[in-house]
């Protein structure tokens, strides 16, 4: 296809992606280097009939508004936003590491810093939910594959629901069931015999609920993909394994799993990407006191009355770096394959 035709076809799509994906990334980087203006102060002389005169500092609202209007980005701040307490917190981190407390206290103190608190939850969510959801999905796929044909349709229908549901709505549904007056929350209190146990009061329960939600909503995707993969397992190989005396487990281990391995890589990649941006469940579960994520930090900076674009920008840049690190194995492999092909 000649260059001209190719670009004629792809141009609208390319413009959309450059304008609304590539440029915002640039805009985020620029924003992260600025902070909002400080208020302009003026010295006012305050004279009273008998008290004499005193000088005091006042906020000049007009001048502040004019300055903000003129330079909406704020003033240049360099990398200062990146290292402040709300982000990488280098000073605080240094102080904590230099102190002579034991390792547990140090860890607890580090995890109290907003960025690290969010980072650790995001990573735990990513690397706990993804493998568990894949394992559950694989188990469901194996089980459904063994069922008679008529039951498969309805089971697939119900299985798709947790995946297709709007994340915020799905987490709200579970949150209401888990609230102290909801069916699950009340049951949990009953089991542990602790009437004060609730999502709000217990960080462990909050984490557990969020991770459970993650597995619940991620498992169907693995299930559907693995189920489709199971239909393509070569019957001959399975049969010869059976003739050679392989048990059920050995057939799964040595025939089915190797056959599905490429699919598993794909599923893991997609789910890691999606889980890294975990955000809606934290809003839905009102979990911000006990668990936050990187995406939630950005949302928190942007919502509310005083929007902190600089702070949101810095967290965004750090998040994007995280995504690139997460994707780097794939990118490096693609690059190698490409070079190989070119040579």
């Amino acid at each position, binding site marked *: *296809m000649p260059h001209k035709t*190719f670009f004629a076809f792809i141009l*609208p*799509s390319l413009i*959309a*992606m450059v304008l*609304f*994906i590539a440029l*915002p*990334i*640039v*805009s*985020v980087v620029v924003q992260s280097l600025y902070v909002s203006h400080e208020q302009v102060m003026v010295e006012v002389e305050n004279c009273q009939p008998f008290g004499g005169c005193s000088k005091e500092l006042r906020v000049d609202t007009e001048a502040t508004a004019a300055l903000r209007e003129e330079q*909406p980005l704020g003033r240049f701040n360099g990398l200062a936003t990146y290292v402040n307490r709300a982000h990488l917190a280098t000073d605080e981190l240094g102080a904590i590491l230099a102190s002579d407390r034991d390792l547990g206290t140090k860890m607890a103190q580090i995890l109290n810093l907003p960025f690290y608190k969010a980072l650790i939850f995001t990573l735990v969510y990513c690397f706990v939910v993804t493998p568990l959801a894949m394992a559950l999905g694989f188990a469901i796929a194996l*089980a459904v594959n*063994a*069922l*008679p044909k008529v039951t498969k*349709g309805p*089971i*697939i*229908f*119900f*299985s*798709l*629901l947790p995946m*297709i*549901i*709007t*994340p*915020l*709505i799905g987490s*709200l*549904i579970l949150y*209401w*069931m888990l609230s102290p*007056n*909801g*069916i699950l929350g*009340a049951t949990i209190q009953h089991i542990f015999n602790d009437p004060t146990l609730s999502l709000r009061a217990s960080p462990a329960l909050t984490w557990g609920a969020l991770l459970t939600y993650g597995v619940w909503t991620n498992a*169907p995707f693995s299930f*559907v*993909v693995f189920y*489709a*993969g199971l239909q393509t397992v070569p*019957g001959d190989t399975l049969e010869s394994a059976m003739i050679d005396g392989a048990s059920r487990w050995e057939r799964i281990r040595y025939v089915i799993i190797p056959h599905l391995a490429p699919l598993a890589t*794909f599923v893991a990649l997609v789910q890691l990407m999606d889980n890294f*941006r975990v*955000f809606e469940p934290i*809003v839905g579960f009102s979990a911000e006191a006990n668990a936050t994520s990187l995406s939630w930090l950005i*949302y928190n900076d*942007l*919502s509310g009355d005083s929007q902190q*674009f600089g702070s*949101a920008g810095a967290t*965004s840049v750090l*998040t994007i770096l995280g*995504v690139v690190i997460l994707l780097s194995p794939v*990118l490096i492999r693609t690059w190698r394959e*490409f070079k190989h092909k070119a040579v």
Partner: protein
Amino acid sequence: MSEAMSHKRPILLNTLIYVFIILWVILAAVPFLWTVWGSFKVEADFFSRESWWNAIFGTSTVRQTGEAFTGSGYYGAWITRDFWRAAFNTVIVTICVTAISLTLGTLGGYALARSGRNYSFWILIAALVFRAMPHITLVSGYLLPFFQLNIWGVLPTSIIVLVAINQPFTLWMLHSFFLSIPKDLDESAMVDGCTRFQAFRMVIMPVMWPGLVTTGLFSFLLGYNDFAVTAMLLSADNQTMVPKISSFLGSIQESGNVMFAVAAVVSATLPLFILVLVFQRQIVSGLTAGAVKG
């Protein structure tokens, strides 16, 4: 294969499989059924302090309204709190996002599938990286420019942003779909004197609908399920359903009208139920097509 083997399966294993599947179906379906059922009760039943049997029998609902089911949550959400407006906005946003995404994606995906040059490979890789960007990081890049250009808060802005965010996925899906249509088809049309665009319109368009339906479903879901973009880029009047529900929550919990939110949540779930019911086959094939080919 599975039928032949099931005869030889030991009873214990069979039981285990059935128990496991029943457990999973309960886990997947019961939260929805429970909430749908509970949305027709009053708050004292759905969030019952005494026993969750109240939610099933509707003890307080009978006491307060005289009947076992009440639509007061739905009335409160749709009429009192103007949820119909949010639903209407959602209809506009999802239809526009799906239509525009597919138009741009079809042209782009077709070009990528037929080009085979280096730059088309790199466009696909860039799309993969873009696909991985958390939406909220992009949103934090939009806000300031949109305030400056004075286009914040209106539906068209959100629609265009959602289309753009959706492009990487749409391009990948349609690219792999067009690869499955034989090249000879449009090339023979071009030998007969068609231009590339005529070949696309007269030969490819008639056979591309299955791929388009599948991709369209996922574009629809992206627009419908989005929270990050619509929550930050729409003003309170223009909100779609999902951000509307989230803004419900804060104000509602104080005034004791949680059931409004429950009713709104159930209302927003219903279209998704119908979607899965009608398009189950296409959703499954779409999920697996990406996996098997990508």
